[in-house]
């Protein structure tokens, strides 16, 4: 269809008019984009080569100093990077796999499909601030989660969930008598894990709904043919469903990674980056350095690095999808 449209357009008799009309139609959007998005981005780039305390008008040029500070073993940046990477590693595959599994389960003749879809989708339409506050209460020492764990006789973490800075892998290995592992391998802290679980809870339903639509676009005769060839359900899933869903999977993964690199609201409301900085993500660090530590130039440099990291992920995803456009 895209091709057809293009052919039509080339014969379009009003092409000359469009040279002006096109820009007129774009104008309202472009003005806002230029003023509130493009301009600010350029300004942040500019700022990242300057020093600015926010409270003084002077913004002296410092060249690459802010970037050097970032890459010369700055502890806070490393911590934030580690937290962000753990967050993405934990959340993105989990929400994708759970979403896909739920979609496969729901993609059959069952009653109440609409109900399930609605129920699973609901958390993702609620405000992140509201969800964060509800989960703060849920995770409190005297909150619901601990009450449930007590009831079924499981231990609860001390300090409680979002106040606990201990790495989960470190804790697990600790119970086997392995101590003193590297900071990167210690894993996300219990606090970060709590926020990750909340994130999966919020997005899992959206993923499911997306996959469900993808599944329903797979023509049933493909499965029929496979079944006639004697393929088991597992084989059908691996050989037919997953390959056909690949574009959707990549889309979901990219969105997921970009989303996790931007996590801010939850951190702001729930932990302010603590305990022991274990929930300080890159986006939160930008905020903290800029507004808490009088270093807006440095914060801008972090923002620029964050921007390029997301850009690279986006480009890699485009490349992969472009290479295997199956349809």
């Amino acid at each position, binding site marked *: 269809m895209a091709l057809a449209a293009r052919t039509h357009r080339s014969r379009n008799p009003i092409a000359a008019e469009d040279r002006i009309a096109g820009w007129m139609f774009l104008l309202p959007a472009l003005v806002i984009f230029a003023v509130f998005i493009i301009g600010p981005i350029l300004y942040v780039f500019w700022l990242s080569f300057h020093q600015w305390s926010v409270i003084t008008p002077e913004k002296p040029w410092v060249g690459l100093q802010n970037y050097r500070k970032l890459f010369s073993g700055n502890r806070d940046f490393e911590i934030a990077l580690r937290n962000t990477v753990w967050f993405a590693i934990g959340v993105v595959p989990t929400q994708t796999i759970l979403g896909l599994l739920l979609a496969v389960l729901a993609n059959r003749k069952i009653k109440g499909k609409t109900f399930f879809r609605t129920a699973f989708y609901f958390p993702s339409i609620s405000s992140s601030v509201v969800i964060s506050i509800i989960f703060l209460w849920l995770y409190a020492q005297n909150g619901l989660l601990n009450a449930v764990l007590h009831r079924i006789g499981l231990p609860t973490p001390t300090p409680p969930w979002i106040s606990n*800075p201990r790495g989960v892998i470190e804790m697990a290995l600790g119970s086997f008598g392995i101590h003193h592992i590297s900071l990167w391998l210690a894993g996300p802290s219990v606090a970060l894990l709590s926020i990750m679980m909340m994130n999966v809870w919020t997005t899992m339903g959206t993923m499911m709904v997306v996959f469900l639509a993808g599944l329903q676009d797979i023509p049933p005769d493909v499965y029929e043919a496979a079944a006639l060839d004697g393929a088991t359900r597992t084989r059908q899933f691996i050989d037919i469903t997953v390959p056909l869903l690949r574009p959707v999977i990549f889309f979901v993964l990219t969105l997921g990674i970009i989303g996790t690199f931007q996590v801010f609201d939850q951190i702001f409301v729930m932990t302010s980056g603590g305990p022991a900085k274990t929930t300080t993500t890159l986006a939160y660090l930008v905020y903290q350095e800029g507004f808490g530590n009088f270093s807006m130039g440095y914060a801008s440099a972090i923002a620029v690095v964050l921007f390029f990291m997301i850009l690279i992920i986006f480009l890699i995803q485009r490349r992969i999808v472009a290479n295997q456009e199956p349809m």
Partner: protein
Amino acid sequence: MERTETRGRVSRRTVVKGMAAGAIAMPVLLRGSGAWAQDVTGTVRLSGGTSSPDEEKLLREVLADFQQKFPKITVKYEPVPANYLIKIQTDIAAGNAADVFYVQSEYAQDFMSRGVLLDIDDYMSKDNVKASDYYPGLISAFVWQGKTYGIPKDWSPLGQTYDTTAFSDAGVKAPTTWDELRSVLTTLKQKSGKPALVLDAQFERFIMFLLQAGGNVTNKDASKLTLDQPEVLTALDYYYGLYKDKLSTTSADAGAGWPGDAFAKNLAEDVMEGNWMFPFLKTNAPDKKFACAELPAGPAGKGTPAFTVSYSIFKGSKVADAAWVLVRFLTGPEGMAKWTSLGLAMPSRPDLMDNWVKEYPIRKPFADSGSYATPAQFGPGGQKFISDADSILQSLFAGQVDTKEAQAQLVTVGNQDITLVPATAPTGGVPSGATPAATPGT
């Protein structure tokens, strides 16, 4: 950042019938305030963090008094209930800062050293306002390189607040030394089966033990970091020892938002907080029976941090004269008497303390600690140091580092965050930085 900052958190819903208390605020003549102030005109914007509607309402009343006295000056009050530091920074960045705003001692040096605030020495001498009208330890927090950039509007030390019922049931009295504290907490725990003291992993709580051990973040003239001294380890060992031996617990562990909250919910029998406790208790636990005591003394004697906030004038203010007249009034005997009349805040003027203590006798130990309180101020970059140090103490409490390692990390972040003052003779005889303030008791 904000959520660890429990001081200043008082609660709403207190029914303010402030007039009885207001009666003690006898009108005092503005000493030395020249007649010139009467002719000053202008509209002054005043901005400050506020932690409760009561506080806001009270300040509005004080401002109404001001308005009556100086009808030619109009005051626009802009209270900020949360995220105050961000607010003030963005306003300054946008050239939109209020003419008069609060500055907290922790980041005062960051503001003063960057030339954001107006030097008020000339105004002070013009109106015969003397630094000695205020507790020296408090006003020195707003002095930078010999110049004054703000006047403390109120202050609070840390002190003990304890549950009198629990204490008398267990047959103990308020502890006065570190050893007594441990033994009292042990007795209380035997009685109730749970830690009696709620004390968080926060640098601005740890600092009291550090001061009691005879240490501090820097030396007196803030020219040298002293975090590598043995006192730091002594304080860390004692502080963490209470938690490790389950004599104290944190508010998160107890299921509360902050120690005062734990105390109000009967999850703590002893807490070490500031004057902001009392309005909170009045609202949230009106029937609770409690008493106060000074903090227990450590190996180097008594010690407590003094938290204070100034009224400062924005350097870019176009109505500096009017702004000064307002600051002068708010920090003068009359304005401050009214401001502190409901007990939401403690006066930073020694001349008002006697009356205040008469009104709030139970809080006398808080007032008494004025004689040795040290301002909570750790040099430019102190704000960042506090948040980095909090993080180290949280690791310590979670058992990730031991006290030795914690001290080593404190030294590292101290070096990294704090800009030391060159070790020259302090100008004007008023040392900036962490000044152990001798504030005359009452």
